């Protein structure tokens, strides 16, 4: 069933665990910020005022996006492998496309928000 090597499988496994540790922190910060941000209503102005033009938030969201684009596709690969009869090569192709999509859209969004605050 498996065509990849032990080495690749182990590195992917490790990457998923390390990205999970990063995500644990990112998700907590993200959720806490959301809870704080919605106090007294949510507005685009408020979000842009916080995130726009702020290099720290930009770095935070870039790290977040990279971690998600590493973590999620590896999990998706396992799910597809266990739940479907798709050939391994097809699964690898699908999740690679998914990873790139998450990465590109995420990075674009992070820079997009950052850019809204730069005049």
């Amino acid at each position, binding site marked *: *069933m*498996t065509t990849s*090597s*032990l*080495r690749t*499988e*182990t*590195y992917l*496994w*490790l990457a998923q665990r390390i990205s999970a540790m990063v995500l644990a922190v990112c998700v907590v910060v993200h959720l806490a910020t959301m809870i704080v941000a919605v106090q007294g209503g949510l507005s685009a102005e408020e979000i842009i005022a916080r995130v726009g033009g702020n290099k720290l938030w930009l770095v935070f969201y870039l790290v977040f996006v990279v971690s998600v684009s590493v973590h999620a596709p590896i999990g998706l690969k*396992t799910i597809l*492998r*266990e*739940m479907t009869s798709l050939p391994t090569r097809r699964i690898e192709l699908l999740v690679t496309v998914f990873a790139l999509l998450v990465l590109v859209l995420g990075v674009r969004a992070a820079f997009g928000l950052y850019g809204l605050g730069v005049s």
Partner: protein
Amino acid sequence: MGAEQINVSIWRGGEEGAYQAYQVPRLESQTVLDVVTYIQRELDPSLSYRFACRVGVCGSCAMTVNGKARWTCRTHVSRVAVNGSLTLNPLRNLPVVKDLVVDMEVFFDKWEKALGSFVGDKTRDEALAAVSPSEPKRKEASAGIECIGCGICYATCDVVDWNKDYLGPAAMNRSWTLINDERDVARLPRLAAISGDDGCLGCHSQQGCVERCPKSLNPTGAIAGLKRESMKAVLKGEIT
């Protein structure tokens, strides 16, 4: 208990088949194996099932009892009957030979695949190895050696169900005892055998094996140990 009866529904046939209903007199301290034996001896001699020791040593009598894999010789009817009824199936995840008998070949093939047998380098002329029972590695090995090979963990494991190449809890539990056996010399080949997605990395730590193991072993813990050792070996380039 008098004329009390147990309603027993047993899977008859192979992969294709149907349930057959029996009524068995309820007795005190009756085990599920007693029930099956009563049916085979008194009601229907064509019923196939496996047992040998009747006392929880041999690991032959495992079946699915009301949806859960159990060793039937040590399972009292009073503990598992639902409204006085029992539904018995063969073990999950293994090919059914007939009725309650499954083909255990794949299960034991995977033990071999996981290099589940001891490899030593001493001859009979050398002194016996002195192994302290209190040493951490020996404790780790001793924690897993009571496996009776009943296949209950293998039948319970969802990863086995989803990935036919997955080695399963029992085989890897065995590997872990050997990796911690200081007399064994096949550490790296064994680590290579149990690494990767079809080996220890495939485990989702759902712990069904731990929950159901009749010997109260912890195969999930053993597999977690294998994950650590296998990862270190790959990072050091000892196995590829």
